[in-house]
C-alpha cells in the first residue's frame, strides 16, 4: 500500500487509473446487459446456417459439392451470396431437374423459410450480395422513363424491348420478364444467374435498378396498355409480317375463292 501511495504523483499515474477505469467499465458492460442479446443473435444466425447446411446436404450437395466448392456438374457457390440463392431457389430454377443448355424456372419446392436458411448457409461460405430489402426493389416512386432508357441500353438486347424474352445460342434463351417478382428481377441484375451477365451496383446503381423494375411494371404486366391492339407476342416485324401474310392475304384469297365458287345462275348445274 505504501508503495502504491508513494507513486500516486508519478506522471503516468493518471494514465494507469484511466486505463483501469476503462477496462472495468468495458468488462462490466460485456458481462451484463448486451452480452445476452449478442448471444441470442449469434445463435439464431448459426441455427439458420445449421438448418441450411442440412437442407444443402440433401438438395444441393450432389452437384455443388459437400462444401459448396462445386463439381463438374455445378459451379462453386463460394461468394455467390444470399441473393443468388434466393433467386435460383425462389424461382424454382434450383434444384435443377436435369443438366441442359439452360435450367428453366419451374415450381418452387422450398418454403421461403427454408430458402432463407439455405441462403444463410451459402452466404456463410463466402461474402456475396445479400437479399435486397423491399425498399431497395420496390418500384414505388421510381423514374419510369429513365428506367426504359436503362432497360434499352442494358437489357433489351436479350430480353426484348418490353421484356418478352428472346433466343440465344445453342438452346439458351433470355426468359420473359412478365410477372416476375421485382425482388427476383433485382437479384438477377445483381448476381447474373446462369449466362446472364451481372449488373453490380457499381455500374448500375440501386436507383437505376429500381427505375428498370418500375419500367417493366408499366409495360409488361397483365393490365399494361397496348394502344395498337393485338401484340402478337411483342416480337416486332417478324410476327406481324407473318400474321399479315397468313391471315390477311389468306383471308383475301379465301373470300375470292368463295365468291367465285358460288354460281349466280338460276339453274345450278
Amino acid at each position: 500500500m505504501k508503495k502504491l501511495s508513494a507513486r500516486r504523483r508519478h506522471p503516468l499515474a493518471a494514465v494507469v487509473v484511466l486505463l483501469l477505469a476503462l477496462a472495468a467499465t468495458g468488462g462490466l458492460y460485456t458481462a451484463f446487459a448486451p452480452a445476452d442479446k449478442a448471444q441470442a443473435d449469434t445463435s439464431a444466425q448459426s441455427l439458420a446456417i445449421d438448418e441450411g447446411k442440412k437442407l444443402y446436404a440433401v438438395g444441393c450437395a450432389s452437384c455443388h459439392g459437400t462444401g459448396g466448392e462445386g463439381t463438374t456438374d455445378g459451379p462453386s457457390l463460394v461468394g455467390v451470396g444470399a441473393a443468388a440463392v434466393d433467386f435460383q431457389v425462389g424461382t424454382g430454377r434450383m434444384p435443377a431437374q436435369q443438366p441442359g443448355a439452360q435450367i428453366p424456372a419451374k415450381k418452387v419446392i422450398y418454403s421461403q423459410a427454408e430458402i432463407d436458411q439455405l441462403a444463410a448457409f451459402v452466404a456463410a461460405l463466402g461474402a456475396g450480395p445479400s437479399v435486397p430489402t423491399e425498399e431497395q426493389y420496390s418500384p414505388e416512386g421510381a423514374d419510369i422513363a429513365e428506367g426504359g432508357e436503362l432497360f434499352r441500353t442494358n437489357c433489351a438486347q436479350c430480353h426484348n424491348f418490353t421484356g418478352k424474352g428472346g433466343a440465344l445460342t445453342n438452346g439458351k434463351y433470355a426468359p420473359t420478364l412478365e410477372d416476375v417478382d421485382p425482388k427476383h428481377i433485382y437479384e438477377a441484375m445483381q448476381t447474373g444467374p446462369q449466362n446472364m451477365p451481372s449488373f453490380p451496383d457499381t455500374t448500375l446503381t440501386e436507383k437505376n435498378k429500381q427505375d428498370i423494375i418500375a419500367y417493366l411494371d408499366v409495360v409488361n404486366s397483365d393490365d399494361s396498355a397496348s394502344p395498337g391492339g393485338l401484340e402478337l407476342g411483342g416480337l416486332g416485324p417478324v410476327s406481324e409480317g407473318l400474321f399479315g401474310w397468313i391471315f390477311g392475304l389468306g383471308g383475301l384469297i379465301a373470300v375470292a375463292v368463295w365468291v367465285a365458287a358460288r354460281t349466280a345462275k338460276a339453274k345450278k348445274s
Partner: protein
Amino acid sequence: MSSQDTPEENLPAERAADEHGAVRVADEKDPFADPGLPPHEHRIQDIDERAAKRSERAVAFLFTLSMLATIGFIAAFVAIPKDEIVYIFPLGHISGLNFALGMTLGLALFCIGAGAVHWARTLMSDVEITDERHPIAAEPEVKAKVLADFKEGAQESGLGRRKLIRNTMFGALTLVPLSGIVLLRDLGPLPEDKLRHTLWSKGKLLVNMNTNEPLRPADVVVGSLTFAMPEGLEEHDHDFQNEIAKAALMIVRLQPDDIKDKQELAWSYEGIVAYSKICTHVGCPISLYEQQTHHVLCPCHQSTFDLSDGARVIFGPAGHALPQLRIGVNDEGYLEALSDFEEPVGPAFWERG
C-alpha cells in the same frame, strides 16, 4: 336466293336431254370437233325483275353503309381523345381511337368492294362473248411499202454519202451520256477517313453509360457487362448518334487465365477487356453476352464472337473479329483508352483493305 321463289313461267325451257351426260358417237373424220360454247344460262335477276330489284337494293345498301362508315370515321376522329385506353375483349387494353378508326375505315372500304362484286355478279351483263384471234404478221404489200419508204428516206438524208455528217453525229451521240456519268461524281461528300476513326484517343476516360461517371477497374466485376462511351460525348450533342454509332463500347471482365489470345491479354487491364459494340457484319449493335461461355451473339444474323479469344468469329456471316480498344488506368485510377481502335469498327467497306 334459290330458284324456288321464281315463277314457273320465267324459268328457261328444259334443256335437251342429250346435252349433258349422254356420250355421243364421235365424228369419224374429226374426232376433236370444236364443241362451241354451251348455251347461255340466265340468272334469276335476268328473268325476274323482282330479284333484280332486290339485288339493286342490296348493292345500294352496301354503298350507303360505306358512306355511313366514312362519316363514322370522321366523327370518331373528332370525338375520341387520342390517349383514351379502352378494354375490348380479345384484344385487351387498346387505344379507343385506333380501334374506331380502323373499324370504320375497314368497313367503308369493304362495303365498296362487296357492293361492286355483288353488282357485277347479279346485274351487269354476263353474256359470253367470243373474240377470234387474228394473224399478227402484216400483209406483204404493207411490208413492201414500209421498206421502200425507209430506203427512200435514207437516200434523201444523204447519210451514206455525206460521211462527215454521219461520223460527227455518231460522235455527238456517244459523248452525250458522259455528262450523266460525270454527274454521279457529285454523290457525296465522300466519307474520307471518317470510317477509320472514332472519338476514342489516348487518355480518353471510359464513361459508364448508365451513370455518366468514369469507370474504375474495381467497378467492373467478373461476369458483369457494362457499356461505355468516350468522355466528352454528351447525349444532346447534335452528332451524338453519329459518334456513338462508331464509339460504342462493351466492357466485360474475364479471369486473366481465361484469355486465350495474347494480344487481347496485352490490351486488357487486369482481365478487363473493351470491345466495339458494333457487329462487323452489317453494323448491328451487338451485346448479347453470355457470361459463362464468353460468347457474344448478334441478334440480326446470329454472328457469334468469342470474347475470350480475341473476339474471333465462331459462327455466322461476320467477316472479322470485333475490334478491341487498348485500355489502361490513369494516375487517378480511372480506366482510360490508350489509343483509338487499331482497325475500322463495324462492317467492311470497299477501301477498308
